[in-house]
């Protein structure tokens, strides 16, 4: 019998599979989002400075709400821009 390692596929069976998304706050146990840390918050906004949807970031609803408040606070304090071009 051929073992699992010996079986060879003509094409890569992993192609076409989607990587499982996860909530990074839940996974790494981050409980507080600092609105004064632009380097962290920049991960959740796009080039125009708009918030990225949960569909893309994989955040859970609870933490998506917290991310959005943190980004809005940062915008008020001019830590992040309200609108921009080529932010990243």
């Amino acid at each position, binding site marked *: 019998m051929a073992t699992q390692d010996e079986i060879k596929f003509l094409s890569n069976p992993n192609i076409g599979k989607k990587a499982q998304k996860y909530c990074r706050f839940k996974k790494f146990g981050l409980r507080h989002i600092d609105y004064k840390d632009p380097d962290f918050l920049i991960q959740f906004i796009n080039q125009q400075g708009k918030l990225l949807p949960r569909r893309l970031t994989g955040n859970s609803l609870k933490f998506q709400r917290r991310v959005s408040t943190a980004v809005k606070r940062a915008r008020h304090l*001019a830590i*992040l821009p309200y609108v921009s071009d080529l932010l990243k």
Partner: protein
Amino acid sequence: MRQFEVTFIVDPVLSGDEVKSTAKTYQDIIVNEGGNLIHVDEIGLKPLAYSINKRSTGVYYCIEFAAESGSFIAKLELALKRDERIMRFLTVRLDKFGIKYNEDKRTGKIGKRVPKEPTVKKSHIDTIPYQAFVSDQTIQEVKETTTNA
């Protein structure tokens, strides 16, 4: 006891002492109203993401304090609003995770990761066998001595 955090931006046109005295007035307000200061973070001069009052930079301050009730916050915010030296301010109440986060930040558990010192790669010379260091001249001499003998 509730813990709060007030962040504000001071006009950078003021001199260093004036900026400090501005921050001091708000620390005094908090202390006089019965709050106790936990930490005053002078973040310092930072570029603004967009210009405010035709200024492109601002001096950031963050004061963390605890108070029995938040009743004097309105008074503090009114003072901040009336002050022309303050460009922006924001007061938030910290939950237990926020308190923990700020504590860890102060003790250095959270923050900018200090880059490790680059490990010195063993230079190419170290790996060259000993022979390579012997100059051609000495080899010549050795050869001569052996042939003579």
